[in-house]
């Protein structure tokens, strides 16, 4: 790998993806589809001072491939990126996103705006999904430091990027999580309310979708819960997450598995 110097008209600028693509470093598209691990539920909920994200930990092929996958990662200090679909392509997308945001920052000595980061991923998702059966659908949520607000961006299969002002879900457990979110969401949620609602929605997804892993009390593996606010990306510690799911589980045991009532 030589020194990547360009003349002014051919310079890829501060975009790592365009450079890597032109230099043949980025992975090319695949046309063959193996049953590689996939499936997910990840939820993002907006609250008054940021966003909450909750994600399950299970990777599913023909059987459970892994029980402790991390599907939400910080793309940078103020941005969380979650993946669903092909695990390999999702991890690749995460890597490209993390690298590209940092690359831009180093090249220009200024950080991308949150909307800039969300838009940046669109053509990458489009290229992958339209040329490969290994689909990937991410969910981006973060703290918009210039507008002092938490924001959520979801994508469609063709790379279309849409901002959501309430909540968003990705993965096979989405319908069940979405149901709980629709009933429980209020526009004046605080951090605690958003965490509680997020956990409950994920519990529902894990309860109904075979490809979503709920809380695993046997192995002590719990869904990931994170917040992004003015103080940046913060992961909620394992014991606290475990306690939240234990409470939901107890309530559900009391009602003998009946989900109704005041959002149990």
């Amino acid at each position: 790998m030589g020194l990547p110097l360009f003349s002014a008209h051919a310079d890829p600028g501060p975009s790592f993806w365009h450079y890597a693509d032109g230099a043949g470093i980025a992975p090319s598209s695949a046309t063959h589809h193996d049953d590689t691990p996939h499936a997910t539920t990840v939820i993002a909920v907006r609250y008054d001072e940021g966003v909450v994200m909750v994600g399950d930990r299970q990777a599913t092929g023909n059987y459970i491939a892994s029980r402790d996958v991390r599907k939400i990662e910080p793309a940078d200090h103020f941005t969380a990126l979650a993946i669903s679909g092909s695990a390999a392509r999702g991890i690749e997308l995460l890597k490209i996103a993390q690298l590209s945001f940092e690359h831009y920052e180093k090249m220009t000595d200024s950080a991308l705006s949150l909307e800039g980061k969300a838009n940046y991923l669109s053509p990458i998702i489009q290229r992958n999904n339209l040329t490969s059966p290994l689909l990937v659908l991410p969910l981006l949520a973060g703290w918009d430091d210039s507008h002092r607000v938490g924001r959520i961006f979801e994508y469609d299969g063709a790379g279309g990027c849409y901002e959501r002002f309430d909540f968003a879900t990705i993965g096979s457990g989405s319908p069940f999580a979405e149901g709980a979110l629709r009933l429980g969401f209020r526009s004046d949620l605080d951090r605690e309310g958003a965490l509680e609602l997020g956990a409950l929605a994920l519990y529902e997804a894990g309860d109904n979708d075979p490809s979503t892993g709920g809380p695993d009390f046997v192995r002590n593996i719990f869904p990931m819960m994170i917040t992004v606010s003015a103080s940046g990306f913060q992961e909620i510690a394992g014991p606290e997450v475990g306690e939240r799911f234990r409470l939901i589980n107890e309530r559900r045991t009391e009602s003998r598995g009946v989900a109704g009532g005041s959002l149990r």
Partner: protein
Amino acid sequence: MSNYFYVSPEQLIKDRAEFAQKGIARGRSLVAAIYDQGVVLVAENPSASLNKISEIYDRIAFAGAGKYNEFDRLREAGIRWADSTGYTYSREDVDARALANYYAQHLGDMFTEGQKPLEVEILVAQLGNKLRPTKLYRVAYEGTISDEPRFAVLGGDAETIKERFAQSEDSLQSLTVTLRNASSALSGPDRVIPTEELEVGILEDRGNRRTFVRLTDEQVKELLS
């Protein structure tokens, strides 16, 4: 149609070296020094946005003296090289020596084969860890690469500044002391450089992956007071 006259290689190299030295001497100088916790880079720079010092990678920083547009292109190429090397292999495989060698090759090529030599001097600094030592690599306009033991001075007035800095500091000091020494070595005895015209970046372990930090004017002021 142009005529070509014979020019001896000695004369050619002398002319080119003079040309490059003159260009570099027009810019202001900078000092990079190792202190007890890391590496500090101090540049005299009247501009607050056209930087001479930059982050390259987790433990690697860059500084350039001379023509801004020329060293900034090299800086960008360095970031690209580091990010793509880390992406292809692993973050721990990104090594400052390899980058300094690429700069040396490119500057050497431009010096002998280019339309004109580049009027720049480059510094690549690396903060050491278990795998690699702390290093300062200085690359001159004609591609000479040197491994500077404790500090390096780049730019026009390098020899004088080097002497001043060497006199003030003969062992590893704290950031405050090293920054003070660097600043007074740059300014000389007859003037004081206003803090807004000092560009300062450090490489220091603070528990984060990325070790480069640009110090604000206020931070520099506080350290120098």
